[in-house]
Every structure is written in structure tokens, then in C-alpha cells.
């Protein structure tokens, strides 16, 4: 492996940062964030809870309780920043990695595990929290978000839609069609790209030769690059983008510059394709440490607070574990459920045959 480390974004106003890796508040000409210590403590709590969900799920996978897990390690600030910018009337359209957004949207993390345990395909009610189903086919959900936003324009709903996707996804036709649609219809949608530098084994350079946030220019709407490991900056930038959307000023592309600290999923082995040194440089930019440093230094939180949050995270992890183990194995015959709203004679027949067949085994005492 001979190539140099990934280039880092230039400093300066093109890269929105409000909290340095060392925990220092910095100002940005376009993005101001008035935020109380209490709110920052809340964000810290979110970050920690989200990381804890992730590490616990990874552990569950290692122990054979999940078939797979897609870790968000390193992307907590991007997800919490965006997740906390979303209000109840906004609707999120996630990929398969938005566990942090789910948490902020109020989804019980146990809900997310069925998909990875193989007991469901997702199966939660997107309307309950305004959080769509996990979408595995790369890029598809960006069009859904755009369509949803067009729906908001038509029924006068006051929220906005937010489409999550990755750096790799930016190459898909669907994502670019979503940009066309959003622009032409001036739809209230925010495109939130977590540029975690990798699409499985492919580095950013395989998808683009210019910064991704500039893609938006080609479609006539603004693009912003934000420090994706800075929860304050992500919150500020995403809030502004959502506000623009809601007030009828159209779409925005937000590129959150972050890093996938773990493997692509638990099935992946990143040592085959990337340098350990890269990981080291990104460890210094940890999204949680900088908030902790800031709160400590500013006196915004004390040791008691940090200990409390740790305890809450432990409780959440225990809840997650217990919930995971309690997830019911589906009854085989339910595989025929929810294919159609109004039934299907073909499926009814197959279900009956299958039920009879399964019953024959039960009868035979198998």
C-alpha cells in the first residue's frame, strides 16, 4: 500500500467548523450557533449513547446474536448533528447506517436490530418517528425523500425531508436524478452526505475528483462542507439547510466530512485496503472527545455529569442486549404476510400449501 494518506479539506470558510478537535469554540462567518451548556450536554449525551449502541451491537454481532452490523463509529457527530436538527415534522430517509439519526428521532434502538439479526426486514413504522426504513440499495432513498418533499409542497405540510447517503452513493444515477428533481421542483429536501472517505474498499477518489459538496453547484442549489466530526457545526449547518427548505428556498446538499473508523460492516476486513496511519490521524479528530474537552474546559459539565451519562449508556446497552435476545424468531408462515395490502389469490394458495406442508411435519412429530 503505497499511496499517501487522504488529503484533508482546506481550512477556511469552505469547511464549516465551530468546535475544533481540541474542543475550542471557533466562529464562522455564515454559521452562528447560540447554544447553552445544557444543550451541549444534551448533544454530548446523544453522542455517547449512540456510540454505546454501536459498540454494543458490534459486540452482539461478534457473539453471534446479529448476522451483521454496519457500524457508525466515527460518524456520531454527523448523525447527532443532523438528527437533532430534524424536528418532529421532518422525515428522515436513511441508508443502513443511520443508527444515530434513528436515536435522535426517538426510535428505540432495539427496533433497528431485527434487520441485522434476521428476524425482520426492518419493519418499523416510519410514520411513528418520521424515520423511514433502512434502504440497502445505494441511493434509492434520495428519490423517495425528494418525492416526499414534493408531497409536502402539495399538502402544505410544514416539515422537510432529509435524505442520508454516502460518498459512494454520490455516483449513482438515482442520487443525481434526485438532485435534478429537487432543483426543478424546488423541493424542501436536504441531501445529507456523510463522506466517510470510503465506500467499502474504495476511497473517495474513485467517486469524484472534486469536493463532493460542489456537486450541488452543477444542479443549481447550494452545497456546504461541514466538519462532520463537529456536532455543533453539523447542527448549525443542517438547521440552516432545513430552515431554507421549510421556508420554500429549496434543497441544499450538506457534505459532512467524517471518517468510517470501523470496517464497512462486520463482514468486512479494512486492513486489506487501508493504512492504519489514516485511522490514527482521524482518532485525533474524535467527535466525542472534543465535546468532552470543551465541556470540561468551559466548566459546562463536571465529573458527575460524565459519570451519569456513562451510567445511562450502560443502561441503554443493557436494554439493547436484552431487547436483542428477546427478539422473536418469526413464525415461518408469516413470510407470506405483508406482501400485498389487498391479498393475492396466488399467495393465498401458496400460503395454504405451505401451511399444510408445515403441518404435516408437525403431525409427523418432526
Amino acid at each position, binding site marked *: 500500500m503505497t499511496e499517501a494518506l487522504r488529503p484533508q479539506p482546506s481550512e477556511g470558510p469552505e469547511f464549516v467548523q465551530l468546535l475544533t478537535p481540541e474542543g475550542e469554540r471557533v466562529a464562522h462567518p455564515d454559521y452562528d450557533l447560540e447554544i447553552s451548556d445544557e444543550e451541549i450536554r444534551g448533544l454530548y449525551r446523544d453522542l455517547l449513547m449512540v456510540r454505546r449502541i454501536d459498540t454494543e451491537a458490534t459486540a452482539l454481532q461478534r457473539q453471534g446474536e446479529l448476522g451483521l452490523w454496519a457500524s457508525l463509529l466515527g460518524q456520531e457527530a454527523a448523525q447527532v448533528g443532523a438528527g437533532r436538527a430534524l424536528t418532529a415534522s421532518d422525515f428522515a430517509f436513511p441508508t443502513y447506517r443511520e443508527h444515530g439519526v434513528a436515536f435522535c428521532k426517538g426510535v428505540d434502538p432495539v427496533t433497528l436490530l431485527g434487520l441485522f439479526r434476521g428476524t425482520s*426486514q426492518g419493519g418499523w*413504522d416510519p410514520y411513528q418517528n418520521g424515520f423511514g426504513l433502512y434502504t440497502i440499495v445505494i441511493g*434509492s432513498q434520495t428519490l423517495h425523500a425528494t418525492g*416526499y*418533499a414534493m*408531497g409536502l409542497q402539495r399538502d402544505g405540510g410544514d416539515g422537510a425531508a432529509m435524505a442520508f447517503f454516502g460518498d459512494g452513493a454520490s455516483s449513482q444515477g438515482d442520487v443525481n*436524478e434526485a438532485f435534478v428533481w429537487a432543483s426543478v421542483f424546488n423541493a424542501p429536501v436536504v441531501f445529507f452526505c456523510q463522506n466517510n472517505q470510503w465506500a467499502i474498499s474504495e476511497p473517495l477518489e474513485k467517486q469524484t475528483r472534486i469536493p463532493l459538496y460542489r456537486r450541488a453547484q452543477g444542479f443549481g442549489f447550494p452545497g456546504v462542507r461541514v466538519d462532520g466530526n463537529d456536532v455543533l457545526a453539523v447542527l448549525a449547518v443542517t438547521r440552516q439547510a432545513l430552515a431554507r427548505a421549510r421556508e420554500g428556498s429549496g434543497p441544499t446538499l450538506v457534505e459532512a466530512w467524517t471518517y468510517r473508523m470501523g470496517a464497512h460492516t462486520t463482514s468486512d476486513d479494512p486492513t486489506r485496503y487501508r493504512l492504519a496511519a489514516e485511522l490514527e490521524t482521524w482518532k485525533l479528530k474524535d467527535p466525542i472527545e472534543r465535546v468532552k474537552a470543551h465541556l470540561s474546559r468551559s466548566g459546562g459539565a463536571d465529573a458527575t455529569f460524565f459519570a451519569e451519562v456513562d451510567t445511562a449508556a450502560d443502561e441503554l446497552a443493557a436494554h439493547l442486549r436484552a431487547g436483542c435476545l428477546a427478539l422473536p424468531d418469526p413464525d415461518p408462515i408469516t413470510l407470506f404476510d*405483508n406482501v400485498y395490502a389487498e391479498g393475492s389469490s396466488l399467495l393465498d394458495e401458496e400460503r395454504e400449501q405451505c401451511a399444510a406442508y408445515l403441518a404435516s411435519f408437525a403431525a409427523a412429530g418432526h
Partner: protein
Amino acid sequence: MAARTLTLGKALNEGLRKALEADPKVLIMGEDVGRLGGVFRVTDGLQKDFGEDRVIDTPLAESGIVGTAVGLAIRGFRPVCEIQFDGFVFPAFDQIVSQVAKMRYRSAGHVALPITIRIPYGGGIGAVEHHSESPETYFAHTPGLKVVTCSNPADAYSMIQQAVSCDDPIVFFEPKRRYWDKAEVDTDAAPAPLWTARVARAGTDVTVITYGPSVRTCLEAAAAAESEGRDIEVIDLRALSPIDWGAVVESVTKTQHAVVVAEAPVFASLSAEVAARISERCFYSLEAPVLRVGGYSTPYPTSRVEEDFLPDLDRILDAVDRSLAF
């Protein structure tokens, strides 16, 4: 009775108008569906009357049409997407197969996608490449979708309304070379259930199972056969997925001979399903193997030879003869 003479295209137009009137959540979207009224004028006048927010001229990208329809449906709308021609549905195939067909399943029933995807299909209009294909098998083979096609103005009028009001995603195939066929449509009559086949012509000797544009061809073949003393029963499937097997089996059990007619290449097609299922269900009744008449295993050919590619009267009657001679 409100019987009026309508072309199939106009019947669809009036059906869509009714659907737009009946439910403010119904939207129409596609390329050129607005002011132009679609290249076949099926949406003629609808944008004028229901506005640009409900009859939407979209950018030129089929994945975008279907993908945004999914989002609109999640938001509670009932989009009716027009794909301009059969051969242009493929850019949207991913959204149809992986999103439209699977969203309900994925969401354990929480999300309904009442989307209708209208596709003018089939050949015989002397068109250039990609304008004459019969892609119904791709959709019929996809669980989560339902597939229907109409063969006459009365069905067109009722079936399009039934499709739009169905809570499942439906691919609605329109037999484009029959758009100009005229018939009386009783706009007050109670429509037949959407999932039933129709005996288009009763007969005793052979059952010809067909759908869409081939129904008329088969009826003409049956009329021609009559003079030679053969009494053909023609079944118009109407629903291609699921299929009304009861009607099919009943007929074949009676006639003991079956011929399946469709324009698509027969290999691994919906016609194969019909033939396989009849062969299984009517095993003891069949006096002859189920024969299939369809397109050949070539891309749809250039228009000067399309008549040789498409099932016509002669090929249908030839198959009927072979079946009876077995």
C-alpha cells in the same frame, strides 16, 4: 344506462379523470403528460382541469419518476406514473423491483404504496426500436407487484379506476395498438372484479388464453375458425399477476385443448407460466400439449417484418389446428 362510444385511449382518459375527481390524493406524473396530454393523448386535458400540481410534467428520467412516486406515496398520495413506451421502463426497473415491490414487505405492512405504473405496450404500430415491446413477464415474475392489462374500452375505463384505487402497486399495461379501437362503454355499469379473467368468446373445441392486444387478434381468429367448423373459446386474462386460474382451468377442462397467445418472446415468459400451470392442473383432461404462440427469441424486429414476428390469425389458427390434430 350511460353508454357512450369511446376509443380505448379515451376510455382510459375518462377513467383517469374520474380517479382524479374521486380522490384529491391521486396524481398523474410522467414525461409530456401535461400540456401535450401524453404522446397517445391518454392524459389529454387533465392538467388543464386539475392543475400542474396534480398532473405533473417531470424531468426526463424514469427512475426519478418512479422513485419520487414512492416518496409521494409515503406522504399519502396515489401517484399514477406514465412510462412513455414499453422500452423505456427499464431505467426505472430498480425502483420498481427493489422499492415499489418490496416496501410493504420491508415495512411489515406499515407503508402502503398505492402506485399505478401505466405502460403502453406491444407492437404492430410500425414504430422504431424500443416502442413495441412486451415486458410484462419481468413484472409478473416480481412478487409484491400486481400486473393487469385491458383489451377493450369498457375494461380500460373500469380497470384503470380500480387500479388507481387499489392499495397495492399495479403495473398497468395498455395495448397501444388498440388505443383507437372503439366500443360502447357503460360508464354506470358495475365493473367486474379486477382479478377475474373474462370469457371473451365462449366455445367448445379449444381454449385460447390471451390478453391485451392479442385478444382482438384471437377473437378474429375464432371468427375465422368458425367458418371451418372450429369453435374456439377465448379467455382474456385481464389480470396477469395474480392470474384467475379458476376461469382458465374450468375452460380447459371443458375443451381439453389449450393454446396460449401473447406477443412477448415465449421463452421463460408469462405464457410459459400459463402453459405450465394448465399442464399441471389439467393433466388428466388435456388431449394435446398446451401450445404457445408468441414472439420469437429475438429483440423486437424492425417494423417491415414485425407482422412475421407477432402472433397473427394464421399462426393462431395453425396452433389451434395442431392442438386439435394431436
